[in-house]
């Protein structure tokens, strides 16, 4: 396929229809937002571990209105917590993760020229870009950005009189999220249709790399769950701006008696979490897929239990739709419902456990090559285990009573999302960087990045479980108002210490990434000696991916160290030898 349009800067780098460029747009936007989100967490951690102390850096970043005399304003604290969550959950771990790897890998791994609709794909990025601009603008409004938590429960998120951030800041947040959801849906359409329709000859569904399965399932989850968040947000917009009573009832705020009756905040919670729970699997699944790939390539072994891995992902996806109530055990809902959600939530542990055992079996008797990507993959397994296990406590309604909304939850979700899913993302970047940019990322900086991150991140989030078991609630501006928490200040200081180190070392990654784009050592077209189709493309990256015909596929992607082979890998494009049996 040849391209007749003249390549201008605009249509090569800005309004590109090429999936590889769109992927990089998502990646870089995601990285920049990640830096902003991380910075926010450092700022509010400073406040938490040193309440009442003045920090010049707070005033430097936030100005004298929100950090007068270097002391963080309590409303801004809640804004930072809200925006940190919003940016990291949606912008980095959803758009940054799926947007990058789905766009980059799908055509390359299934053997297609590009996505089913390059135009919809481009739109998907530009909606995301506009959403980003709107969200960032909300940081600068006079009454402050949204501050009712990333979960924006009404009435707090509906009433500016309840908290200043629920004014214009919340409006902009809602507009940004609506645009974000549209972006996500446009992307999802492409991912599903392309994987189902545009596979090359020989690429049956059972020969798909696990990354493709993961992304396909993620996209289906997204199409079915994001629109429900849109409906929840729409009704919230009406309550906020048009005086309806979908969520509001019996309220006196700021001395004013409101007219709303008959609304239910719990309705919002149901609609929100109907997306909210699948959302965390939308975040996790692509990383599960990436890690399967990286682990196999770098252990020089097939991923153990391909069918079981696919089955487990399908089970997780299906179950993810029926567990949302575990976020709502103490909302006053019918106890019977609570039992149902406990049951389904604990069930989800089974396919998750199966996946972990399969990963361990993949490593067993492997011949492991420790690239930075592989280290992050091993880190993924460790943190997914840790975070998954604490989920057993939170998913049990009786136990949740005393740990709901405490630091126990904060520890849990950061370990599964902020560690596991991000490690998957890092792993993917280090692994596919040569394919994206034709150069290698620096190995030593990669090692440094991994070890400091691995140690600091556990240093930040593991202790949080103890804070939670000591009864410490989340989203508290300071812990000094209750004498019962005085003994916990040492733990808080340790957490902040590791948070600062962990935050700073991410700059090493950012530096490595951008330096290597321009000055990294040139890569060969298959530096990791991997089997999948993307490594058969020329290193210079062209529109349409392959210069001639798209290669045909003859086998599954995991023929590593297959007995009887000449090398320890056989690419999918290699026809079966005489007498060779396909796995």
């Amino acid at each position, binding site marked *: 396929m040849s391209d007749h349009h003249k390549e201008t800067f605009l249509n090569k780098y800005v309004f590109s229809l090429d999936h590889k460029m769109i992927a990089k747009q998502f990646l870089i936007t995601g990285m920049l937002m990640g830096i902003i989100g991380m910075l926010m967490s450092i700022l509010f951690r400073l406040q938490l571990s040193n309440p009442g102390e003045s920090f010049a850096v707070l005033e430097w970043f936030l100005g004298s209105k929100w950090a007068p005399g270097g002391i963080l304003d309590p409303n801004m604290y809640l804004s930072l917590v809200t925006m940190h969550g919003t940016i990291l959950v949606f912008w980095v771990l959803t758009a940054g993760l799926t947007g990058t790897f789905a766009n980059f890998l799908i055509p390359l791994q299934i053997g297609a020229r590009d996505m*089913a*609709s390059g135009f*919809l794909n481009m739109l998907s990025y530009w909606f995301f870009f506009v959403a980003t601009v709107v969200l960032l603008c909300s940081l600068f409004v006079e009454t402050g950005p949204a501050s009712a938590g990333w979960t924006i429960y009404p009435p707090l998120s509906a009433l500016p009189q309840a908290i200043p951030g629920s004014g214009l800041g919340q409006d902009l947040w809602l507009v940004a999220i609506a645009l974000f959801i549209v972006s996500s*849906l446009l992307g*999802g*359409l*492409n991912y*599903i*249709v*392309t994987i*189902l*329709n*545009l596979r090359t000859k020989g690429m049956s569904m059972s020969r798909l790399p696990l990354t493709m399965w993961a992304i396909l399932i993620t996209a289906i989850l997204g*199409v*079915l*769950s*994001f*629109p*429900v*968040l*849109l*409906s*929840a947000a*729409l*009704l919230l917009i*009406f309550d906020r701006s*048009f*005086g*309806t*009573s*979908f969520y509001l009832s019996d309220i006196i705020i700021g001395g004013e008696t409101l007219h709303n*009756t*008959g*609304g*239910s905040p719990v*309705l919002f919670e*149901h*609609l929100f979490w*109907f997306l909210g729970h699948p959302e965390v699997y939308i975040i996790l699944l692509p990383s599960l897929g990436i890690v399967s790939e990286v682990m196999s390539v770098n252990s020089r072994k097939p991923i153990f239990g391909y069918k079981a891995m696919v089955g487990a992902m399908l089970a997780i996806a299906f179950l993810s739709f029926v567990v949302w109530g575990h976020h709502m055990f103490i909302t006053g809902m019918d106890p019977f419902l609570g039992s149902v959600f406990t049951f389904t939530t604990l069930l989800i542990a089974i396919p998750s456990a199966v996946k972990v055992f399969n990963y361990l079996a993949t490593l067993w008797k492997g011949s492991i090559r420790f690239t930075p990507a592989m280290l992050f993959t091993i880190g993924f397994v460790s943190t997914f285990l840790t975070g998954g296990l604490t989920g057993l406590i939170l998913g049990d309604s009786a136990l949740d009573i005393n740990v709901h909304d405490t630091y126990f939850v904060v520890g849990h979700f950061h370990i599964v999302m902020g560690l596991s899913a991000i490690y998957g993302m890092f792993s993917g970047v280090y692994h596919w960087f040569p394919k994206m940019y034709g150069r290698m990322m620096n190995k030593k900086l990669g090692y440094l990045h991994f070890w400091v991150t691995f140690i600091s991140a556990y240093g930040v989030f593991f202790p949080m479980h103890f804070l939670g078991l000591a009864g410490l609630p989340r989203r508290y501006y300071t812990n000094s108002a209750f004498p019962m928490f005085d003994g916990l200040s040492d733990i808080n200081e340790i957490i902040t210490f590791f948070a600062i180190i962990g935050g700073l070392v991410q700059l090493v990654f950012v530096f490595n990434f951008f330096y290597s784009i321009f000055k990294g050592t040139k890569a060969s077209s298959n530096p990791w000696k991997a089997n999948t189709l993307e490594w058969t493309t020329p290193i210079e990256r062209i529109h349409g991916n392959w210069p001639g015909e798209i290669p045909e596929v003859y086998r599954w992607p995991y023929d590593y160290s297959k007995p009887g082979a000449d090398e320890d890998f056989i690419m999918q494009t290699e026809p079966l030898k005489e007498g060779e049996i396909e796995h």
Partner: protein
Amino acid sequence: MSTSKNNTSKQLLWVGMAGISMFFAGLTSAVIVRSAEHGWNSIDMPIWFWRSTIAIVLSSILLIIAQNQVKKGNTPTVYIVGALVLGLFFGYCQLMGWKQLTAEGMYFIGEGSNPASSFLYVITFAHLLHVIGGLIALLVTSVKAVQSKYTKENYLGIELTSIYWHFLDLLWVYLFVFLLYSVK
């Protein structure tokens, strides 16, 4: 090349419609939850919404005929334009329906509003927004039909417009019956 593009375009549309369905599933679930609580009024469904239902069903039928015609090699133009006209009439009926509601004291917000009326407005409004997309598609298809751009071999545009329009039709019928039952 065209068959695979046909397939992918249609599938893109199907997946998109699945997403839109979930959006309305969210809204109708909200109605179910809310209507079980106290303070849920009953509303007489405006006669205009009955008329709009007939209009959209008829317009879908016209599109089916249009597609059959083009398959046989005849011109589908009059049927597509007819569907467009009925679609515009659907929009008009919706607006008149809202006008009738306010005349009867059922408002969207403020004094005179109640949860049932608020939901009625929100859901019909959300549907109409999606119908606008369908009307644009019908307009484009009509123009192309007038220009004789569709042949027996290639009438993908009519197919896509029809699929989406039938979806809007069925969605409306579902919402209409659902609301009829919920606010009686």
